[in-house]
């Protein structure tokens, strides 16, 4: 079972890889819409990548209103 810290780190690494941002520029408390410069469509892309990476389903209503990596990690952790 992954720890919340591991899950958070994997999310940050995946976001850095696919949205071409240096990993060191991303923090768990960052607003990922602003930091990754993404709109709602790209946010769906992020959710899809996270679902595939973690092998889970993440209903989008569970992440509505979620804007920071830490809360996103909590939502994912609850489904691992």
């Amino acid at each position, binding site marked *: 079972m992954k720890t919340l810290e591991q899950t958070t780190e994997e999310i940050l690494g995946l976001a850095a890889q696919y949205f071409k941002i240096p990993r060191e520029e991303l923090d768990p408390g960052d607003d990922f819409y602003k930091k990754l410069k993404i709109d*709602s469509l790209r946010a769906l892309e992020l959710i899809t990548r996270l679902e595939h990476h973690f092998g889970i*389903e993440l209903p989008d209503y569970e992440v509505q209103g979620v804007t920071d990596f830490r809360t996103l990690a909590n939502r994912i952790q609850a489904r691992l």
Partner: protein
Amino acid sequence: MTTPQVQLSEKSKTLSWELRDGVLELALHHAPCNEIGTAMLGDLEKFVEALKAAEGKAGALIVYSHREAGFSAGADLRELYENSLVLKVAERAAGVRAFLERIHFVLNAIDASPLTTIAAVHGVTFGGGFELALTCDLIIADKMARFCFPELRLGLIPGFGGIPRLRRDIGNATVRDILLTGRSINSAKAMASGLVSQVVAEGEALRAARATAAQVCKFDRTTSAAAKQFLKPIPREELRREIDLFCELFERPAVMEGLGKFIRNKGPHPYLP
């Protein structure tokens, strides 16, 4: 008087089609993400003429998108809202019904085509875009494809034949999940649900669709068309009831309020139900 000749290769404002090696390919290229409004509807109506003209020349149809964001974001809600705003309530319902009758004619024609039809989808495949994909015999999905019926968020139901075609293809419990929660599902879930026949790597859906089209074209067309007709009846009565229900719901003030809210929403979440 001469009848205008139907072109088997044509590029219009929102889409293009081409007959190559016995396969008719329909490519959607309407920015930003193939929203289906009056412009695309008019082009789809012309395409349906080409589809009929291609019978006997083509064995398969592939429908795909050139837009990076996805296959199609569905109905053009901005146009629907703006066109409805200038009309009285009774006229709004009549206008919507006329549009639905036309799009149902197009989608029923694709659904019933004797060609073996394949939707090659990637990215956003929402609402009317999902409904277009559901008319095809096979859906081949890029790993990053995402499917959704967000209409209930606006106080509506899918109006382009989504519910009857979804019910035709998959179990009622999954239909209820997709429809009543308005959530989007990824390609793996769609595959597990029986909606999608193949999931391929990013950017590979069209290649896989072409390989599949080449395979299905090896078979006798009469037999393939007969098998399709046997397996895939058009749920005409339910499609008709769906139009009626959509128009009934559309007349309520809450729908225009919901559409207006969606159009004015400049936040990052408008596509998240």
